[in-house]
């Protein structure tokens, strides 16, 4: 019951008037910005990083807790009320959610999504609080080779599991690792890839990178293809569910939580797969399967809960091992590093107040979110009508402030433009952004662990896999790499057409 007492201490940290205010501000800002079209949770956190510069780390992370869940809920609202999903984790919610909205049931869709997010978020956070101390106990025994192996697993998983093209995923990872290498090598003190520019000696600031890749890249990309006809925004009046909606929702919420949390907690990449899994499960278990495709509430309740549970699960590897599995987690890790804090098993000891304050704030933020969203859904829906020129100009405006304020240097503004151009190219040519951001943030840490492992083994390469844990991890990586190839070969022999495991984006109805 280690977790429970620590959690109570965390509440003691979080429940001071000022910290509650930070959590509240985080939730409101996170939802308001996350609801804006084109802005996912990762961009929300990246854009809001600068306003936490002047805060103490504990308060900053209490605010992040609010932004994290707020941004995610905002994203689902967008995908229900507009007919196209903005980010991969909301793709599934958009399918039935938008159909419900079109049939005049937007209010029920938003309600089941809000309450489902609350249920899954609360249970997921509880899971995090209980699991984190256990993982930490195991993780303190992990050595450098083990960490390196887990990081390789994260790289492989994020490039091969997500996206349709492995070459493009790996290319994106390579670009990320390359950017991560820029700066002075901490071990030898030599400059790498700095072009002799003193501004690059410390590497590129994480705010510039995250804001450039997500905000500027996205704004430029959308600007080049801006839809000139206004989108059809569905209006909502008061958000509530009927007795029947409740009856049909509560089981999908719980099932979604059970599916989402483990997927988030293993370092293998994001909410995309579990949300599809939840959708498929609900479709199979539904009493009236024919409703699916016409706006079934189970198809919103399940994936939404999954999405949030997986987000809570994703904090387990982030806080205990320092390994991000999603773009949002990578930006959070960057924020930790910005405060000179390296998440890992010792984090719970060295910064116990911060970590448990953060976890307690996740509970608080979740509750605030529920209390706010039911009455405020109509206000959020109105944000969707913001004229697009102002919206994307605003993104560039705030991206520029953030990048400049990080170091008060004009050089960073030029760098922001270059990174933004890179983000534009990646979107244009189908290179996924997530492997790049994970490579940037995790690459340097992985290099350090690898070199430490080899120093311990006195340069012997066997030092990278001389523990049973690292060997098992490499075996898992091998399976991840080989299994799809074998499946394809077997299918080809049998003469079957390869069936996609998960529906592709192109299949999303209503696009």
């Amino acid at each position, binding site marked *: 019951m280690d977790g429970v007492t620590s959690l109570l201490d965390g509440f003691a940290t979080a429940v001071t008037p000022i910290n509650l205010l930070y959590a509240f501000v985080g939730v409101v800002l996170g939802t308001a910005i996350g609801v804006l079209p084109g802005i996912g949770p990762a961009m929300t956190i990246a854009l809001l990083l600068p306003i936490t510069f002047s805060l103490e780390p504990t308060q900053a992370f209490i605010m992040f807790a609010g932004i994290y869940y707020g941004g995610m809920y905002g994203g689902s609202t967008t995908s229900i009320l507009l007919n196209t999903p903005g980010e991969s984790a909301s793709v599934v919610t958009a399918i039935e959610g938008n159909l419900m909205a079109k049939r005049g049931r937007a209010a029920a869709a938003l309600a089941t999504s809000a309450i489902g997010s609350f249920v899954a978020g609360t249970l997921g956070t509880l899971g995090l609080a209980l699991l984190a101390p256990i993982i930490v106990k195991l993780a303190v025994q992990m050595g450098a080779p083990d960490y390196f192996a887990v990081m390789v697993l994260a790289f492989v998983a994020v490039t091969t599991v997500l996206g349709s*093209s492995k070459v493009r995923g*790996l290319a994106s*990872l390579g670009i990320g690792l390359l950017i991560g290498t820029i700066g002075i090598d901490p071990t030898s003190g030599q400059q790498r890839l700095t072009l002799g520019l003193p501004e690059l000696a410390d590497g590129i600031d994480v705010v510039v990178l995250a804001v450039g890749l997500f905000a500027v890249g996205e704004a430029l990309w959308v600007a080049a293809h801006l839809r000139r006809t206004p989108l059809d925004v569905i209006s909502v009046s008061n958000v509530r569910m009927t007795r029947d909606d409740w009856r049909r929702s509560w089981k999908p919420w719980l099932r979604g939580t059970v599916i989402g949390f483990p997927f988030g907690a293993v370092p293998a990449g994001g909410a995309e797969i579990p949300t599809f899994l939840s959708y498929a499960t609900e479709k199979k278990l539904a009493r009236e399967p024919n409703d699916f495709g016409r706006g079934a509430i189970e198809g919103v309740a399940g994936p939404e809960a999954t999405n949030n549970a997986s987000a809570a699960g994703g904090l387990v590897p982030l806080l205990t091992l320092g390994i991000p599995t999603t773009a949002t987690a990578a930006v959070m890790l960057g924020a930790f590093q910005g405060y000179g804090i390296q998440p890992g098993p010792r984090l719970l000891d060295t910064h116990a107040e911060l970590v448990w304050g953060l976890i307690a704030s996740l509970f608080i933020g979740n509750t605030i979110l529920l209390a706010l969203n039911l009455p405020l859904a109509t206000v959020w829906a109105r944000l969707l009508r913001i004229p697009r*020129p102002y919206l994307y100009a605003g993104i560039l405006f705030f991206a520029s402030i953030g990048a400049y304020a990080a170091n008060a240097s004009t050089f960073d503004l030029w760098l922001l433009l270059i990174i933004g151009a890179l983000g534009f190219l990646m979107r244009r040519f189908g290179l996924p952004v997530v492997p790049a951001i994970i490579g940037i943030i995790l690459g340097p840490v992985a290099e350090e662990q690898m070199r430490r492992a080899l120093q311990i083994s006195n340069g012997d390469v066997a030092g990278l896999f001389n523990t049973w844990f690292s060997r098992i991890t490499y075996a898992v990586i091998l399976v991840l790499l080989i299994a799809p190839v074998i499946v394809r070969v077997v299918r080809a022999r049998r003469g079957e057409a390869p069936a996609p495991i998960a529906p592709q984006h192109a299949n999303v109805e209503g696009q």
Partner: protein
Amino acid sequence: MSDTAVTRKGGRSEFGVALLLLALGAWAIIDALRMSADLASRGPVDARTVPIAVGALLVLMAVLLTVDLLRGGRGEQEGGEDVDLSHGSDWKTIGLLVAAFAANALLIERLGWPISGAILFFGTTYALGGRHLIRLAVISVILSVGTWYLFYLALGIPLPAGILKGIL
């Protein structure tokens, strides 16, 4: 290479991605090779190892991407709520956005954020199709002056005041 593959929109420009990967990979490897050997490290791994490995990965991906493109593979453009992929990239808008962005970077320390930020917001909104110029100008100034005060007073981060020093 078949004609159909090239005539499809963006067919040829995708080879530019392969070229970019190749260039980045070569840069990493060349930069690593000019570094002196690291005396402090033991064994086969030193400061050059990771850049060389990453460079090799990028070069390999450049080759594999070229193969993929020659076989007719295409990168999937990213969709989104406000994205209409039925027409090509609108380079005029992009050009104007970059110009507004560059203006801010050039002017922020000379004229100060309240002015350069207003130019940035006005320019980008105009580029994106905002046409209520007077309303836009008012909003731009309110935003840039407002954020200056927000950062200065609430967050304690002074953004450049430039020529307005002493007035704000």
